[in-house]
């Protein structure tokens, strides 16, 4: 297995873009990425595309060759990967495995989602299909409801408070306000977060991430060849994927995500690092509680202490572990299939010291955690300079 590096990144802004099609978005991200990596389309040997629900949102199937051709990548193996909100993390993982295993040298991995052209209730229904239809969706469960039950149980077992959830929302909105590509760039106060419209108690609208359009792409190659393409290649020190049961009721303990623990352990082991070695992280804050639990599951804080840690400034831009300096899914946006690779793009910017106003002090190592559904898939990536 040979080491792999990221030699190019590219993404669109995330937001609601009525005039942009799914293809437009994917082509923009892909083109920017190829340009960034100084690679021409004929040099790309394989294409992996993460996308959650293109067929449901826009009616188009067979998306990978569709996008590959539009990018001028003719005839190469092109595959769409679906793992709910971890679709592009998973696409990235499989792209890495292929390069590490010697199958290809230059591979493009991308993610795209076009969500805003259908009504809100239909979006909710499509998103719910990432849950177990028979076991929970039929009873009326939505994703906010599933994470609300997770939050409630976490509050019951560990004393986590709504106040602590709100600090996550406030932080991520403050970070997003400094990100020109973020979907939502307005600041919010803790009072606004607490008093927002209730979606599924105890989660308000401000505890929930956004419905967005967007695309992101990364270019990878064997680490040995990276200097041929990039003056600032970023090494993939560890990458791992894990799964779990879909239905919340099938899990022994809903206050922790076993897939996150499993993927995190494997990624840290591969990288030969520990949680305290990570300088900056992009964690999957589909809901505020998810960021809190990710801190625990990845070993950054002990079990049950994610709430107090968030409230104390541990994860602030000037904290010990800056989390979601991009704004996270909360403010940057969550075009489902694009999110995983979007996180990697944001991490790479930090690690290349190109994050402008959002630049953190230390960024030699970074971690991205991409979660699918209510934890049935997780991909964890550890990057190094």
């Amino acid at each position, binding site marked *: 297995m040979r080491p792999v590096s990221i030699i190019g990144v590219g993404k669109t802004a995330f937001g609601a873009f009525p005039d942009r099609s799914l293809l437009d978005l994917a082509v923009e991200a892909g083109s920017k990425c190829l340009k960034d990596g100084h690679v021409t389309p004929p040099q790309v040997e394989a294409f992996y595309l993460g996308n959650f629900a293109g067929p*449901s949102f826009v009616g188009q199937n067979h998306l990978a060759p569709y996008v590959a051709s539009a990018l001028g990548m003719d005839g190469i193996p092109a595959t769409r990967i679906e793992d709910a909100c971890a679709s592009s993390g998973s696409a990235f993982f499989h792209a890495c495995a292929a390069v590490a295993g010697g199958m290809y040298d230059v591979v493009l991995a991308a993610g795209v989602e076009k969500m805003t052209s259908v009504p809100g*209730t*239909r979006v*909710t*229904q*499509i998103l*719910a*299909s990432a849950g177990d239809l*028979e*076991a*929970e*969706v*039929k*009873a*009326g*469960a*939505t994703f*906010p*409801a599933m994470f*609300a*039950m*997770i939050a*409630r*149980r976490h509050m*019951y077992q560990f004393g986590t408070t709504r106040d602590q959830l709100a600090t996550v929302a406030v932080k991520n909105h403050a970070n997003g306000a400094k990100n020109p590509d973020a979907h939502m760039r307005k600041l919010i106060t803790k009072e606004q977060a607490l008093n927002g*419209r*209730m*979606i*599924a*108690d*105890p*989660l308000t609208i401000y505890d929930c991430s956004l419905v967005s359009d967007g695309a992101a792409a990364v270019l990878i190659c064997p680490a040995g060849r990276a200097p041929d393409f990039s003056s600032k290649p970023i090494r993939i020190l560890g990458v791992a994927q894990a799964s779990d049961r879909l*239905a*919340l*009721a*099938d899990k022994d303990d*809903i206050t922790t995500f076993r897939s996150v623990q499993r993927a995190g352990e494997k990624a840290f082991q591969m990288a030969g690092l520990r949680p305290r070695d990570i300088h900056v992280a992009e964690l999957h804050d589909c809901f505020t509680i998810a960021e809190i639990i990710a801190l625990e599951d990845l070993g950054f804080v002990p079990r049950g202490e994610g709430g107090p840690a968030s409230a104390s400034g541990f994860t602030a831009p000037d904290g010990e572990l800056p989390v979601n300096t991009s704004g996270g899914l909360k403010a940057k946006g969550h075009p489902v299939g694009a999110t995983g690779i979007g996180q990697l793009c944001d991490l790479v910017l930090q690690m290349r010291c190109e994050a402008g106003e959002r630049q953190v002090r230390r960024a030699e190592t970074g971690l991205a955690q991409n979660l699918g559904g209510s934890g049935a898939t997780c991909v964890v990536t550890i990057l190094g300079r």
Partner: protein
Amino acid sequence: MARASITPPRERKAAWRRFRPRGARRKMTLYRCTSCGKLAVTQPAFCGCGNRKWLPATVSGKGKIYSCTTLYAAAEPFEKDLPFQIAIIELEGGVRLTGRILGARVDIGDDVALVEERGGVHFFSAA
């Protein structure tokens, strides 16, 4: 994807009590692994222990709330039922399932009992 929502039984309290004494509960048929004894709500192909054989097991339909939430926004077919509460109920025997709550709102730790099963959805009320 477009499924009709399961209409919950209407809560005609007085009439309901004429036919069902207070606190009555339905029994439930679950599935028990013939190898390790684990219970499952719907019959899976493989048990976690690797066994593929299951036998029906009747349980009382009583349980406790493991977690719950009241929804104020829902997917398309369920909008007309808003607001409604769903819960993860831990049944006697340890197995959990997701169900709808009828009647008064419940909280973690409350005792509930199965009122009705309709179209694969289980409806529980505070016991």
